[in-house]
C-alpha cells in the first residue's frame, strides 16, 4: 500500500466513518487537511463564521439525527473559541468528534504562534481527548474517538493534530472495530435488579415516571412509550427529555422542575415510587435536595454509574442502556402477566387531575401587547406541532418547553446543562442540514440571538432556511425576572438601551426580516414566514417586557413550593436560596 499523508488519512477516515458534514474553520495548523478536503467531495465542509458556531451546528446536527457531529478547527484561538461549544455538548452528553490543529510537535510547549495546551484546556469538558504524536496511530485514534463519543454515555471527544503529523506519510488502514481494555460500558441491565425493580414498580400506590435526555440519546423512546402505557402511570419529563414521550398524551403531566407544571412537581413530591429513567437529578429538577420526593422509593436506570446516587440516594440502581433495560422490564411484566394496583392508581390519577385543575400554565391573554407564550402557542398551531425547534437560553427557552408540545424525540433541541446563550441559531442550522425537508424554527430572545448572529451568513451561503422566532422584550428576561423577585426590582444591567433593527439586519445578511407588534398579526406573520420554504425568515416579535415564567420554584424551595402566575407575591422566601443559582 502506498504511504499517504496524515491529512489524507484523516479525510479517508472521515469517509470510512460515513461522515457527511464537517463543520469548521481553517487556519495555519490545519492547512494540509483543508488542502485534502479541497480534493474530494464526499465529506462536505461547512464554513461557519465563528468556531463556537461550528461546534453548536455539529451539536444541533447530532441532536436532530442521532449521528455524531464532526468539527474541524485550527489551533490556538480556533480551539478556545470552540471550548464553549464543546462544554455545551459535554453537559448534555452529545456525541461529537472535534479535530483541532496544533503547532508542529517540535514546537509544542514553546509558546509558538497560535499555540494553546488544547488537551489541557479541554480535558474537563470532554469525554476523552487525544494528542496524536505518531502518524501511524492516527487512523486508530480517529476510530477510537468515534467509538468513545458514540457509546456508553455519549459525549464530545477531541483529537489534537500537530501540523507535522498531517504531512508525515504512512500506510492507511482504518480498523473496522476497536477495543479498549479500559473502556467497556455496561449496556445490559442486571436481571436480578430489573426483577426487583419491577416488583417495586408494580407495588406502587402513587407511582411516578421521571425521564430525561438519556431516553432520547439511547433511542429508547419506543420502549418508554410501551412501558408507560402498559403501566398506565403518570409521566413527567425533564427539559432534556421532552419528546421522548408524546406531550399530547394524557399520561404526560408536563415538564417538572424549576419551571415545571404544578401537577408534575406536586406528583413528584407526593409519589411513593419514583422511576427515574435516563435522568440525572439535576438541581433544576430536584429543587432543594432534602425536600425532594420525601416519601418515595427510587428506581434509577442510567448507563452512567456515576449518575446514580450522585445527588439523591436511590434504592434500586440499574446500570444499562434505557431501551435494553426497559425492554427487559416489559418482558418480565408481560411474561408473568403482572398488573399494577389499579384501585390505588385510579385514586392517584384523581389526585393528579385535581392538581391539573390549577392550570398552572395559564397566562393572561392580551389584545394590546404580544404575550410571548401566545407566540409559541401560535407557532405550535401553524407548524402543526411538527417542526424541529431549537432554542437559546432564558425565558423564551422555558416558554418554548412549556407551550410547544413535543410528540417525538429529537424534535426539541436546547442547551439544558450548560445553558449556553447563542446555541439556538447554529444548532438550528445543524438540524436543517440533518433534515433539509423539515421545518426548523429557532426560538430565541434579543439577548441570546446577538451572541451568534454571524452564523446568519453561513445560513445564507449554504441555504439552510430556518425560521427565527425572536421574542424581543428588550431585556435579558430571565435575569430581569430574578431581579424583580429577589432583588427588589433593581434591574442591574438587564435592559438593552440599544438594539439593532433586526429586520434590516436580517436583510443585510440576505434573509427576510419581519417585525410584528400586535397580537392580531402573530399568526399571519408565522404563516407567511413558513410559506417561504426556501428562505430564512427573522421574525422579530415585540413582546410584553414584564412577562415572567411561571410556575417557578425559587432556589432553595422544595418541589411543592411553587410560585404561580397572578397568585403569589414574588418575594424571596428562602434566604438560603440566595446562595444558590
Amino acid at each position, binding site marked *: 500500500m502506498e504511504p499517504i499523508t496524515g491529512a489524507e488519512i484523516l479525510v479517508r477516515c472521515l469517509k470510512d466513518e460515513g461522515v457527511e458534514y464537517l463543520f469548521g474553520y481553517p487556519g495555519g495548523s490545519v492547512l494540509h487537511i483543508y488542502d485534502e478536503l479541497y480534493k474530494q467531495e464526499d465529506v462536505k465542509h461547512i464554513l461557519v463564521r465563528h468556531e463556537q458556531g461550528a461546534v453548536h451546528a455539529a451539536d444541533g446536527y447530532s441532536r436532530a439525527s442521532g449521528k455524531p457531529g464532526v468539527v474541524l478547527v485550527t489551533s490556538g484561538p480556533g480551539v478556545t473559541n470552540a471550548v464553549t461549544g464543546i462544554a455545551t455538548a459535554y453537559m448534555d452528553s452529545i456525541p461529537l468528534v472535534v479535530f483541532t490543529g496544533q503547532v508542529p510537535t517540535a514546537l509544542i510547549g514553546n509558546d509558538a504562534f497560535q499555540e494553546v495546551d488544547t*488537551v*489541557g484546556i479541554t*480535558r*474537563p469538558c470532554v*469525554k*476523552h481527548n487525544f*494528542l496524536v504524536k505518531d502518524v501511524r496511530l492516527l487512523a486508530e485514534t480517529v476510530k477510537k474517538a468515534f467509538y*468513545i463519543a458514540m457509546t456508553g454515555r455519549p459525549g464530545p471527544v477531541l483529537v489534537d493534530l500537530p501540523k507535522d503529523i498531517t504531512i508525515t506519510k504512512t500506510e492507511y488502514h482504518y480498523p473496522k472495530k476497536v477495543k*479498549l*481494555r*479500559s*473502556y467497556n460500558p455496561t449496556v445490559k441491565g442486571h436481571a436480578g435488579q430489573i426483577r426487583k425493580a419491577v416488583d417495586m414498580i408494580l407495588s406502587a400506590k402513587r407511582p411516578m415516571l421521571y425521564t430525561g435526555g438519556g431516553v432520547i440519546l439511547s433511542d429508547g423512546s419506543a420502549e418508554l412509550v410501551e412501558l408507560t402505557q402498559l403501566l398506565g402511570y403518570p409521566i413527567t419529563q425533564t427539559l432534556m427529555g421532552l419528546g421522548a414521550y408524546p406531550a399530547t398524551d394524557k399520561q404526560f403531566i408536563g415538564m417538572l422542575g424549576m419551571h415545571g407544571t404544578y401537577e408534575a412537581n406536586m406528583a413528584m413530591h407526593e409519589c411513593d415510587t419514583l422511576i427515574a429513567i435516563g435522568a440525572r437529578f439535576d438541581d433544576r429538577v430536584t429543587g432543594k435536595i432534602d425536600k425532594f420526593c420525601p416519601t418515595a422509593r427510587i428506581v434509577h436506570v442510567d448507563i*452512567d*454509574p*456515576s449518575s*446514580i*446516587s*450522585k445527588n439523591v*440516594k436511590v434504592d434500586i440502581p440499574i446500570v444499562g442502556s434505557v431501551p435494553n433495560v426497559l425492554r427487559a422490564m416489559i418482558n418480565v411484566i408481560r411474561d408473568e402477566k403482572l398488573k399494577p394496583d389499579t384501585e390505588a392508581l385510579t385514586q392517584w390519577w384523581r389526585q393528579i387531575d385535581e392538581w391539573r385543575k390549577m392550570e398552572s400554565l395559564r397566562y393572561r391573554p392580551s389584545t394590546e401587547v404580544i404575550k410571548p407564550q401566545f407566540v409559541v402557542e401560535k407557532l405550535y398551531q401553524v407548524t402543526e406541532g411538527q417542526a424541529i425547534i431549537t432554542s437559546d437560553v432564558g425565558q423564551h427557552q422555558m416558554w418554548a418547553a412549556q407551550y410547544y408540545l413535543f410528540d417525538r424525540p429529537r424534535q426539541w433541541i436546547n442547551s439544558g446543562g450548560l445553558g449556553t446563550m447563542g446555541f439556538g441559531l447554529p444548532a438550528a442550522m445543524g438540524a436543517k442540514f440533518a433534515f433539509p425537508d423539515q421545518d426548523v424554527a429557532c426560538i430565541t430572545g434579543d439577548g441570546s440571538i446577538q451572541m451568534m448572529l454571524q452564523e446568519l451568513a453561513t445560513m445564507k451561503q449554504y441555504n439552510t432556511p430556518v425560521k427565527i422566532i425572536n421574542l424581543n422584550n428588550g431585556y435579558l428576561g430571565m435575569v430581569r425576572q430574578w431581579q424583580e423577585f429577589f432583588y427588589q426590582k433593581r434591574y442591574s444591567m438587564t435592559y438593552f438601551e440599544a438594539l439593532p433593527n433586526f429586520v434590516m439586519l436580517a436583510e443585510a445578511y440576505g434573509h427576510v426580516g419581519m417585525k410584528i407588534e400586535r397580537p392580531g398579526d402573530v399568526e399571519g406573520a408565522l404563516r407567511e414566514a413558513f410559506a417561504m420554504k426556501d428562505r430564512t425568515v427573522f421574525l422579530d416579535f415585540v413582546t410584553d417586557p414584564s412577562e415572567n415564567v411561571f410556575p417557578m420554584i425559587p432556589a432553595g424551595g422544595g418541589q411543592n413550593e411553587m410560585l404561580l402566575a397572578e397568585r403569589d407575591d414574588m418575594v424571596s422566601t428562602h434566604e438560603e436560596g440566595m446562595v444558590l443559582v
Partner: protein
Amino acid sequence: MNNSNRHVISILMENESGALSRVANLFSARGYNIESLTVAPTDDPTLSRLTLVTSGNEQVIEQIVKQLNKLIDVVKLIDLSETDSIERELMLIKTKALGEQRAEMMRLSEIFGGHILDVTDSTYTIELTGPGGKLDSFLRAVEKDAILEVVRSGATGIALGQKALHV
C-alpha cells in the same frame, strides 16, 4: 465533614501522557481532596499504578470511585480500605546530630527500624518505611528543632492474600 474516613485507592491506568493529570483534574474539578498521590510504571510498561489517599463520607467515596472508573484511561481500581491490605510509605529525614543527639538519634532510628544513609559531623540522613502512622510517630519522637528536612513519598499499598489488581 461527618463520618469522613480515610481511603487508600489503588488504580491501574494506561501509561500515557496526560493520564495522571486526568486524575488530578478530576479531584480539583469536583472538589475532592487528595492527601497524597504516588504514581509509577508497573512491570507491564503500558500500565501505571497510581495510589491515592483521600477522605470523605461513604457517598463521596462512592462518587470518587465511580468518577475514577469513568475516566477512559483507568483500567481497574480497588479501594484498599475495603479489604485486608497493607500500606507503606517511604520517608527520608535529615536531622541534626551533634553531641548527645548523635547517640539518641541513632537509637531512635534503630527502634523504628530505620537506616542511616548518610552521616556528616553534624547531621544524619535517615530512611524509614512503614505505614503513615508510624512515620508520624517517628517525627513526634524526634526533637522538633533537630529536624532539618523531611521527604515523604506518599502511601502505596497492596491487598493481602490472593487478591491482586492486574489486567
